[in-house]
Every structure is written in C-alpha cells, then in structure tokens.
C-alpha cells in the first residue's frame, strides 16, 4: 500500500477531485463525509461550468478574458495568480469531465453546447441540463468508487470530522472523527488533511444550501488556529424560491436562456401577469444595465431586486417580497431540454408550471466567498507553480483546504458557473502539492507521533460529548436557538448592512451562543443521536457567525456582495456636462482613495475565547489593475470616461518604459 495517507474531509466536487487525483498519484486516501458522498451539496449546482472554448474564442474570448471577468466580478478582492491559473485550466478540466462521462448537452453537430451566464458577454458555460453539479459530482463519485475497489480509497460515510490533531510543533498529524451511527469517536492518523467541507449557509437558517453545509468542519479547523479569509463576503443569490424549510435555488441559467426579471409598474397590480401589457411592466435590470441586462453579476441583481421590493415598494405581492422571473415567452421544447431540472423543482414545490406562469422569486443566501485562508506559489508569469506544497495549504502545516470552504478564487462576489470550476480546480491542484509536501517533509513523523497524542485527542472529544449529554434538561432547545441565529444573521448580514445593526446582531449572537452552551438535549442515547450532532454543530456555528459579523462591521465600504449604503459611492446627478464631469472626477478620486484603504483581504484569527481577531492582508492585483465596477450602468458612462483618461498617461508611461 501507498506510503502516504491523506485524510480528506468532505465528498463534494473539491473533496472528490482531490481524492481521485491523490489516488492516481499513489497516496492512500481516507475520505470522511457526513453523507454518502453521492449526496453532497455539489449536486444542487444547476447552471453549468465556465471555460473559454473553441466557440467563444472565435468571438474574441480568451483565458485572459475569463480571468479578467472573474476578478472584475469579484471586485478585485482575490489574489490574481490562482484565478489566472484556474481560467487557464478551465478548458482542460471540462475536457477531463467530458472524458469521465459527464452528460453535457450537445449541439446538433455533437459538440458540447454552451450558454451565457452572468458577468460575461460570452457563452462560456458548458452544462448538463439544469443539473450540471449533480452530473459532475456523479462522474467524480464514480471515479472515486473505482479507487475504492482497488483499495486506494477508504470511505468513512456518515462520519463527522471533529477537529485536527496537531503535534507539539503545531503540525497536523490526523484528525478526530465520529461515527454518526454507532457514535464511536476515533482519532485517525494521517500525513496530511484536506478540508473540502463546502459552505456555511446553514448559519443563516434557511438558505439555498444543503443541511450538511453548517460550516462546522471549517469552524473546528479555524478554532484550532487556521486563518479565515474574507468571512463577510456571503453571496446572496438573486433568484430563489421561498420555502418553509429551504430557499430553493432558481438557477441563473433561467436568465442565461433568456429569462427576464420584472415587476408591474403599478405596485401590487392585482391582474395575473399575462394580462399586464408590456409597457406596464418594469424590466428594471434591463433598463438600468442595458449592456448586461438580466445577466449582471449576482450581487448587483440581488441588490436591485431587494431595492425594487423594499425601497420602491414594487414587490409583486404585498405580504411577501418577490419579483417575477419570466420564461413564458420562450419555446417549451427549449425550456424542457435546457432547463427541465429546475423547472421541475419549481413545479413540484410551488404547484405552478413556470413554462406558462412567471415564477415568483426573491434573493437567498447562496455561497460563501470567504473561507479558510490558503497559500499559493506564484510563477514569474503570474500563474501558479503546480506541485508547490504551498498551493491550497492553510497556515497550519499539513492542513490544506479546497472548494467553497477556501477563500481563494471569488473575491467579493462569485460569478455564476465559476464555483464548479473552482471546486474541481482547487481539488485537482491540491493533490500534487500535497504529495510534494509529503515527499519533502519528515517522512517518519507519522511513526514517531506518539499514540498518546491521538488518545488525548480522542479523550477531549469524548469529554465534549459527555458534557453535552450530561446537561440539565431545563436549557433551550437547540433547534429554536438555530432558528433565531438564522433570523439575526439574515437580517443583519445579507444584502444590506448597517453598522448599528451589525453591532446589535453581534450582541445578540453572543447571547445565543451562551444559551447554546447550555442547550438541553432531548435525546441522550448513544445510537444515531442526531440531536447531539446538531447541538454540537450549532455551537461551532458561532465562531464563524462572529467572524462574518465582525468582518462586515469593520469593512466600511461597498465591495461586491458587501454593501453598506452609508459608504456607497454617490451617483452622478448633474445634467450639466461640466458639472457631471466634476462629479465624475470627485467620484474617481474617492474610488482611488477607497482602493488604497480597503482593497485588502480580511483575515480572521480565532482567539482562545472564540472571538475573531481581524487583520488585513495585501491582495496581489499585479496582473489587472483595479477599476470601477459599473457594468455599463446607465449614468455611469462619464465615470468610465474619466477613469479611462486617468489610466492613459499610466499606460503610455508603461509602454514607453517597456
């Protein structure tokens, strides 16, 4: 058997691609997952996966342009070399997934079909119906099963990761886990640990995320000393279907295929939507952003929908906020072929056919751009050195992170159809780096790690478990505390953020945390005790929740998904050209000052009391200089003009010196 053992936590796209590649490179992999990996949250991704391709190339697209769209979409908050590398790998990743049997939609000539997604002008997105994430997940699941048969991979499904095991030098030697059926706790020795546990949407109560996405694996690693980057950047997806248990995603591909967002111009117009004539409909995204229309990036679409409903009072319904997402003008056969999966979801849960009646949708928490801080090694050309042990490596030696739970690729806002790409990419490139780390490192460390280290780790986790089971029965119900946490987080830290509200939310979260530490279990058994598992995960939501709130409180600006009206850049209001120009000059001055102050990653470190300590870190924007992010907003042209003029001398200077 292989000489190295790597433990991977999480079996979504990132965990499975890392596992598959590690197995190919000869490592033994132990894969820990809360659910059978085939049921991981990646299956919920609908719309597709981005890459430049032969079709878009002929329209002027390139790897560079995919890279540029991603950093512009992310408001320049991500380090550029990893993003550049990802865009370059994208076509090869899609080819690989194609070979693995992913059922990508085809053109009549048999090529992979592509659609357009938000934040780009090119049809860059390959897709498999409207269940692309499911199809990609299954292809990787199948490959990992192949390695399971050959004995390279061992799965621990229905096992929960409880935290890393660190030696006296702070180097990771394995992790503690619990069997969620028998409730047995074990410490597993491993030479490296990969956290690929996904997002933390469950902290917001209801979101588009699956029930396993509670952020507890990340939280336990963060509490053990790992840094958490950009916690305040939470993507709120513009289009979700409200539900009492979950806010179900309505994919961006609905707009990519021509879906239009609108509200009646007359507030709460009682007529059914098809009786409202075209001129009485307000297609607010198309009117405000004629260049990108319904395909502006998600943060912008979300804010516009939110504003139309809350500030302008134009919600379709009076008691419940929502806008129309209309597909009824599109041919039914096209809808069935390209969007069947998501339209079925709407039909099943709402009992209405979206092919004939416009859908009612509203924004919902969807993705964590922030996550575990990870390193990378830059090449002179501005890409990544593949195989570097620094890639995807957290600040804890021996712990790597990949997928949604790392902070690396999406900056302040993620573009649609880039998450499947970043998950597979980060998982794939983590593998050779881990092997280098293991080969360069101290090979005998595992053997020399004293068994007392693991015994002690097991004992600590058992003590935590027993403390939970011993609690008096008069405490709060953990499910009710969770509902309240979700309400507080959703109200204070989603679409619109105000400092006073964030302060109040922090106080409230501290109070809920104290109550959670004394919550009572209604199940004290030692067999499949879901009550206990939930209560423990709930406790671990608080350190992350506090990092999100603190990060948001301290960042006094607007960037991507983080929006504080108090610090919003003023619009150009003057009609007089000279005055408009003066306003635009002032706007650009302020933009430059803000970039100098705030274009930095937020880095949270957990102190011994579970409180976040925040510092800021420079962002590598060496390849594409930051610029105002306007997406052709009506009224924004003068800003773009002034900005271009300001860049001219710099470009000319660079050209003459080069």
């Amino acid at each position, binding site marked *: 058997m292989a000489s190295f053992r790597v433990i991977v936590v999480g079996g979504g796209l990132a965990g499975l691609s890392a596992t598959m590649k590690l197995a190919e490179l000869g490592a033994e992999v132990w894969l820990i997952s809360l659910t059978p990996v085939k049921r991981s949250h990646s299956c919920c991704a609908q719309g597709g996966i981005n890459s430049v391709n032969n079709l878009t190339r002929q329209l002027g697209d390139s790897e560079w342009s995919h890279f540029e769209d991603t950093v512009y979409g992310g408001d320049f908050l991500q380090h550029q070399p990893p993003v550049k590398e990802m865009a370059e790998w994208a076509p090869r990743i899609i*080819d690989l997934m194609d070979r693995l049997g992913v059922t990508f939609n085809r053109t009549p000539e048999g090529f992979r079909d592509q659609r357009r997604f938000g934040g780009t002008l090119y049809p860059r997105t390959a897709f498999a119906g409207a269940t692309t994430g499911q199809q990609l997940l299954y292809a990787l699941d199948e490959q990992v099963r192949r390695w399971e*048969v050959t004995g390279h991979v061992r799965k621990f499904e229905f096992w929960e990761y409880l935290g890393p095991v660190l030696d006296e030098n702070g180097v990771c030697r394995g992790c503690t886990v619990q069997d969620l059926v028998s409730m047995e706790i074990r410490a597993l020795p491993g030479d490296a640990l990969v956290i690929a546990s996904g997002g933390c949407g469950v902290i917001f109560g209801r979101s588009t995320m699956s029930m396993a996405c509670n952020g507890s694996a990340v939280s336990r690693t963060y509490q053990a000393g790992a840094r958490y980057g950009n916690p305040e950047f939470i993507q709120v997806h513009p289009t979700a279907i409200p539900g009492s*248990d979950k806010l179900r995603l309505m994919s961006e591909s609905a707009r990519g295929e021509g879906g239009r967002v609108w509200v009646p111009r007359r507030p709460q117009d009682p007529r059914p939507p098809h009786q409202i004539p075209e001129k009485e409909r307000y297609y607010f995204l198309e009117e405000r952003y004629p260049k990108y229309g319904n395909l502006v990036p998600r943060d912008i679409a979300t804010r516009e929908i939110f504003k139309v409903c809350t500030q302008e009072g134009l919600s379709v319904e009076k008691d419940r906020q929502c806008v129309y997402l209309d597909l009824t003008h599109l041919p039914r056969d096209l809808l069935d072929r390209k969007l069947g999966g998501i339209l079925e979801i709407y039909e099943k849960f*709402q009992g209405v056919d979206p092919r004939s009646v416009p859908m009612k949708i509203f924004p919902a928490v969807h993705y964590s751009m922030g996550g575990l801080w990870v390193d990378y090694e830059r090449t002179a050309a501005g890409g990544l050195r593949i195989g570097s042990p620094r890639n995807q490596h957290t600040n804890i030696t021996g712990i790597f992170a990949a997928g949604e739970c790392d902070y690396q690729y999406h900056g302040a806002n993620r573009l649609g159809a880039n998450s499947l790409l970043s998950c597979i990419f980060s998982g794939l490139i983590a593998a050779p780096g881990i092997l280098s780390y293991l080969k360069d490192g101290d090979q005998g460390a595992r053997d020399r790690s004293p068994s007392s280290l693991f015994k002690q780790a097991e004992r600590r986790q058992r003590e935590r478990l027993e403390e939970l089971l011993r609690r008096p029965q008069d405490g709060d119900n953990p499910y009710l505390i969770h509902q309240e946490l979700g309400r507080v987080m959703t109200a204070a830290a989603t679409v619109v953020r105000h400092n006073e509200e964030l302060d109040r939310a922090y106080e409230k979260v501290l109070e809920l945390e104290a109550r959670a530490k004394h919550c009572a279990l209604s199940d004290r058994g030692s067999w*499949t005790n879901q009550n206990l598992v939930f209560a423990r995960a709930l406790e671990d939501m608080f350190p992350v929740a506090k990092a999100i709130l603190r990060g948001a409180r301290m960042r006094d600006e607007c960037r991507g998904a983080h929006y504080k009206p108090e610090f919003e850049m003023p619009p150009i209001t003057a009609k007089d050209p000279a005055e408009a120009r003066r306003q635009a000059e002032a706007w650009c001055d302020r933009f430059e000052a803000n970039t100098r102050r705030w274009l930095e990653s937020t880095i949270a470190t957990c102190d011994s009391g579970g409180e976040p300590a925040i510092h800021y870190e420079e962002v590598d924007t060496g390849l594409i200089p930051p610029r105002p992010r306007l997406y052709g907003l009506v009224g924004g042209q003068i800003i773009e003009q002034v900005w271009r003029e300001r860049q001219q001398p710099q470009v000319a200077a660079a050209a003459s010196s080069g």
Partner: protein
Amino acid sequence: MTDSSDSQRPGGPRPRQINVRVRRQDGPARRPYWETFALPYEPDLNVISVLQKIAALGRNAAGKSVPPVAWECNCLEEICGACTMLINGRVRQACTALVDRLLEQNPREIRLEPMSKFPVVRDLVVDRTRIFATLKKVSAWVPVDNYLDLGPGPRQSQENQEIAYLLSKCMSCGCCMEACPQFLKIEVRRLPGESEDDYRRREGEITNHAFMGAAAVAQIDLFNSNPIGAMNARERLDVLIGEGGIQVCGNAQNCVKVCPKEIPLTTSIARMGRAATIHMFRRWFDL
C-alpha cells in the same frame, strides 16, 4: 400565495392541526413502535419541515418529551436522494411530499415509515450501503486511462446525450428497489467482536448474490452506451447475466412508476434484456 391555483384549494378547508404518525425504532434489533405527533396547521409545508418542527417541538401528541425522530436528508430539493421514506404507504422523497396534497388524500393523519427493503438504523433512517455496493459490482464508471489532459471526450449526438442524461440522473435513492417485488430485504447483523470492515465484507458477499435492482440495470445501460464505457461492456454484461442479475426481474414494472426522477427504467431493462440474450449466445458460441 396569491396564485389563483391556491385561492381555490381543492379538498375544502384545512384542518387546524396536522397529525403525524411515525413508525419508530430505536435501533437495528429493537421492536418498532408507532408514535403520534401533532402540529398546528400551516400552509405550504412539506414532510421535511414537519420533521424539523417535530424536532423543535421535542414532545409527542400526548405531551411527553421524546427524542426527535431520526431521518436522513440533505439537499431538500429532490436531487441528493437522501430523504426516501414511505409516506402514507408510498415510497418517495420527503422533501417533495407537500403536506397540503397529503391532507387532501387523508386529512386525519400523515403516516411516515422507514423503507422496508433496507435494514433500519433508527426511526426513518435505513442502511442503503447495498445500493452503493451494487454500483461497484456493475463497474458503474468510465474507465479512463488517467486524469491528464488528453483532449475532449468523443463527440456525441443530441439523441445519445438525452438518453444518457435521463439515466445519469439516478440519485441512488432506493425507491425502485422498495417497490420491486423481486428485491428482497437482507439484514446482516454485525457479530459480537466483528470489526466494521469484516462485517461490511461479509454483508457485501451476501447482498452480492441478491437481485441488483432496476437502478443498477439502468447504470449498466448508461455505461455500456458511453463510447469509452462501451470498451468494457462485456464485463458489465457478465455481471448482468450473473447471479442476482437481470433474469431475476419479474417485469412487475413498479420501478418505473415510483422513480422520482422519471428514469425510463423498464426501457433500460428491456434494452439490457436484449443485450443479455445476445451476450449469452456469444458466450455459448465463444464469439
């Protein structure tokens, strides 16, 4: 909700409370029992939100404090396959089981039971390891040489893609197995002192002889129709005609009726039946 479809709800006025009767079981060798829970009526619930509310309530209809009902779920949008159970006697996903529709069928109660073809772990949680073991048995994967950059996969027609996509949506939920009269429950108990590995190995050896079920047949169809997967189609066909293979199918056609993803399982079974016959002849004549 203001949809016209909602303002005229069929089934008349809603009950004031929702009664939920759950078939519970504390562990594998324990005796099952029924427990009833009562919740105030709310519109637009599904069975998942009912189970969440039961957990938050913490007591049964008699007011007694009881452990929450154990059940499995993840995505809540019928794509992960986790929350399969029997609802009013019918196998389905709990997330798409809408309470208002269930109350139209029976306003007095909603009945929840674990699947009967898999060993109960606790309450509504069953052990479906067998489903994934079968995917190993039938080599449900494309055997690529490596994960390096070797260009795209083969070009495919829209027609092939559409068939493959339908089959590839199988989420291993187990509905088709629950509904199949030929797919029988196998419960292998762990022996005292037996390691988890040894237990799973022994269990696998036993379930491997039993019927693979419609989902596995459709997976063979999927991978044998993939241009690269077809290269080891014979291996899969050997399994298909082996013990627990397609010949066990009694053509009851229940599978296709209960599949939540509407996979044309019986079409696959028919197609694979023909392939099996041809394969058998070829084996006899050593072609």
